[in-house]
């Protein structure tokens, strides 16, 4: 069964995806033609929103499990972190005992949306990409509307922005590049990051329109909220705001003092309020850890990734940035954000040499989003000039339609082929292995259980049911990771007389083992079953011989 309850086992996935790609341009052209009759910018905005929904639907329909659950370590980790809160655990803790949340806002939000029900959380999670992608388009449209009496930012232009930023920030050959397809990697894989994108336009608006101290304070608070949602977007936005102030100081000196005041107050308030979270990050994560992996990939021409990989978009963005800067204060802040994103991207050169080039992918997607926004403004401006020059209809509806038709070939749904372009699609076609669901069902509702044993299987349990675990694979290692590892291994090998007592510092109540873990420990399933303190609750076997075994710890007989 897929997300919508349809049986898709017999679906010809290649034919389905091919048909979806062929159908979309026809639907889009009909929609655009109808837009000329309807003559409302909202129609085009709805088209952009529906196009995002189309990509999400096209990708989700053939899947018999939550997208990327299993093939992507990130997806498993994020679910394991948020399920712990959905299962009623403390807000700042993840499923791994003693581990602090990386994105507590997301965990809290999803827990509330699920009604603190892990099973519902799992079902709802599939819809978050849809909500965030469509929500981002709507957020941009709403947050760029002009205040009463102000010129610029027509509805048609804002609909164009919504369409460009969501559908044109990814390019047809991105999948062959080092950072893959931004839309898929942001909305499909990490809706938690996309949440930051939803908030960002409102922070920009708040800073641009700040006139009184109260407004600046509000901008700072909004910025801090963005920090709780996704700290990298907060940092990138801060850099963008500083870039805005610098640009204004260079070319609009009369506005410079106000710009600096607004920016510094907003950032200052943000830093003050968000500092506990930053401390939490420093404490829980190895923020300054360096390593060879934290360099620019050798095959990636770093500067060109931001410029000539999408050359036409970059040229339109350059034109759009100039138009934005000349337009009004809101435009100047958006222009600053694009310049700041580029500066941030260039900052990876020195970071590369320090082996500190972290989170390049997220910064890259941020840059692409900002370039697409500027490109939308550039395209809108260019369309206006060309239509006027050719003495064609300059009415806004026609202009919007003209830009939409010109951009259509490059729009995501026209070329999106998840079977070829998405790393996680193929691995998500089959249902979750029954050995995991079977054991998770056995654990369901036991919110006091703490699982030790195979960190990979334990992470599955955390992701499926919010069960707390001693160690989860690919989670940041706790300070006492070695002691935890040794405890679990010794207990399974029968070297711990009372595993329940020995595991008490972490609250261990259950063990989960797999053939790989048992082989690593050098024992067999039968040997573990023979251990007194290990009471077998479930041995879930697959037809290929793979299994997951769940044990409950009991006090040893005296």
């Amino acid at each position: 069964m897929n997300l919508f309850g349809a049986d898709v086992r017999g679906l010809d996935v290649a034919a389905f995806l091919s048909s979806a790609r062929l159908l979309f341009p026809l639907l889009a052209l009909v929609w655009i033609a109808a837009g000329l009759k309807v003559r409302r910018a909202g129609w085009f905005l709805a088209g952009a929103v529906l196009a995002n929904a189309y990509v999400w639907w096209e990708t989700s329909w053939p899947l018999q499990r939550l997208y990327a659950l299993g093939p992507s370590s990130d997806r498993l980790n994020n679910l394991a972190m948020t399920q712990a809160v959905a299962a009623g655990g403390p807000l700042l803790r993840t499923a791994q005992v003693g581990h602090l949340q990386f994105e507590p806002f997301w965990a809290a939000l999803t827990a509330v949306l699920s009604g603190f029900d892990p099973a519902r959380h799992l079902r709802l999670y599939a819809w978050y990409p849809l909500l965030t992608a469509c929500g981002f388009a709507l957020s941009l449209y709403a947050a760029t509307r002009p205040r009463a009496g102000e010129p610029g930012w027509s509805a048609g232009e804002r609909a164009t922005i919504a369409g460009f930023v969501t559908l044109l920030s990814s390019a047809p050959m991105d999948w062959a590049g080092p950072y893959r397809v931004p839309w898929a990697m942001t909305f499909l894989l990490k809706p938690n990051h996309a949440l930051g994108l939803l908030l960002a336009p409102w922070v920009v608006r708040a800073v641009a329109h700040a006139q009184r101290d109260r407004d600046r304070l509000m901008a700072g608070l909004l910025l801090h909220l963005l920090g709780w949602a996704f700290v990298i977007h907060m940092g990138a936005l801060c850099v963008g705001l500083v870039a805005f102030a610098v640009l204004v100081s260079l070319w609009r000196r009369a506005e410079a003092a106000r710009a600096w005041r607004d920016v510094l107050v907003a950032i200052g308030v943000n830093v003050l309020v968000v500092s506990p979270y930053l401390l939490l990050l420093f404490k829980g994560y190895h923020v300054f850890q360096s390593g060879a992996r934290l360099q620019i990939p050798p095959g990636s021409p770093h500067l060109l990734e931001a410029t000539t990989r999408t050359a036409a978009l970059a040229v339109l963005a350059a034109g759009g940035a100039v138009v934005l800067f000349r337009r009004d204060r809101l435009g100047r802040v958006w222009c600053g954000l694009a310049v700041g994103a580029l500066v941030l991207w260039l900052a990876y050169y020195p970071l590369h040499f320090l082996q500190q080039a972290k989170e390049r992918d997220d910064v890259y997607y941020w840059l692409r989003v900002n370039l697409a926004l500027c490109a939308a403004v550039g395209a809108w401006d260019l369309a206006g000039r060309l239509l006027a020059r050719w003495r064609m209809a300059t009415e806004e509806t026609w202009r919007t339609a003209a830009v939409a038709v010109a951009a259509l070939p490059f729009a995501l749904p026209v070329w999106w082929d998840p079977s070829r372009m998405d790393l996680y699609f193929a691995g998500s076609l089959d249902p979750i292995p029954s050995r995991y669901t079977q054991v998770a069902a056995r654990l369901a509702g036991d919110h006091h259980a703490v699982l030790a044993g195979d960190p990979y299987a334990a992470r599955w349990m955390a992701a499926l049911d919010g069960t707390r675990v001693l160690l989860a694979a690919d989670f940041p290692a706790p300070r006492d990771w070695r002691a935890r590892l040794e405890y679990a291994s010794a207990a399974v090998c029968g070297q711990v007389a009372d595993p329940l007592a020995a595991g008490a510092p972490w609250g261990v109540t259950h063990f989960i083992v797999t053939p790989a873990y048992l082989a690593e420990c050098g024992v067999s399933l039968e040997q573990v079953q023979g251990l007194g303190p290990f009471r077998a609750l479930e041995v879930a076997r697959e037809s290929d011989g793979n299994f997951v075994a769940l044990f409950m710890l009991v006090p040893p007989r005296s």
Partner: protein
Amino acid sequence: MTGAPAAWLGLSWAPDPVYDIALARNLAAVLALGAGGCELRGRRAAALTLALAMVAVSAGFWSAALLRPYGLLVDSGVTRWAADTVVTARAGGTDILLAGEPGAMTPWRMAAERTSSDLVLAVPTLLPPIVLVASVLAIALLWPGRAASLAAMLWIAASTGPLDALRGVGLLDGIWRRPGRAIEWTAAVVMALGLSRLLRRWPRAAVIAVAIIMTAACLRGSPPRLGLLEAALHLTLDAHVWLVAGVAGLVIIRDPPAIVMAAGGALLVLASAVVPVFDTATASAFARLGLVLGAAPALEALAEGKRWVTAVAVSVALAGSYVAWWDPSRTDPVAKESLAPVPDGLAQATDWIAVHTDPGGVFIAHPDYAPAVAALGGRRVLRAPGYATAPDDERRRRLEQAVLDGNWPEALRSRYGIRYVLLAPGQFSERGLESPEQLAARGSFREIYASGKGLHVYELGEARR
């Protein structure tokens, strides 16, 4: 020895697809910007030269990066072609890689016979930059239009776009897969543009000549194929700005041969969806070329003498072009595997075979190595399942079994000219051979080669009976 095709260009090293690609792309971007800069200064010839250099760097990088001829021992079709070609050159005769099976003497086989089989094997791998550079030069030098050089530069970007590539009909991606087609298409373009120039005072004759050449080049359709709707989308969506600018330009300049290429190519693309006799990719390349020949004057008209407009267009088109960002290691699994050289042990053994065995002697080899014996060693084989099957395959299989048993009918052996057996550990275990050395005990075999990698060549003597 069949090594890296780029060795034929005198390169003693091959660029690394991971560590050198960023440098190549940066260089290509600099050349693209340089071309734009020259265009800005009104030096179009210099701009064209830099654009050609960009093509040479971008496409040439991957030609040079392959450490074996494209698809050799990776793709069955390419390997079969290579085997037929090499045995013709080294063992003579008209038989294909299977002894006793005559085949048509293709131009490739004839060329190998007269030159060097290694060179012929290298040609398809080296073709991408050659085809692009040749077509660019043909446009610049032969097309009589005023904006010929500009069209030539735009062609670099327009010849293959990302959307064409994703649909499987990109010119650049198809060159390795269909080298013969690529050469034919290039020749057809040269002829069509040349005749357009020669017959420019007789436009009707030029139109007829171009139409005939184009139709002839599009005959003998082969995959990839598109459905009718997909073909229509390819001609419109995939062509995007080239369609708009091309149609506008063709309306302005009214150049009959260019119009025939654009319209005729489009019709042939649509026809190929219905009648498989026409080749979709070839027709699509003609249609795109016609549009580009129109787009160049349209761009000049739009620029109204402002050189910065054409300069920006050239820079953006070149720097963002598919060829500048081409990465077959990610988009073409066959190319990815061709980045690795032929395994040392196999290369050494087949080199030895090429030098020390009788060119007319036929080999028995396991299906894993039979194509290598032919394609690398240049010796024919009795059987090569998966690559070629003779009508008398069952008889050959029985003979193969009899030889491995050491008990073969001499008349049948000499009919096929079998003289050698190539064996590696684990091969023919289903025939009861636990190790190559066991073969010697089964009959009159003389070991004439043994490598440290476990490969053995045995020469057949007298049969036991």
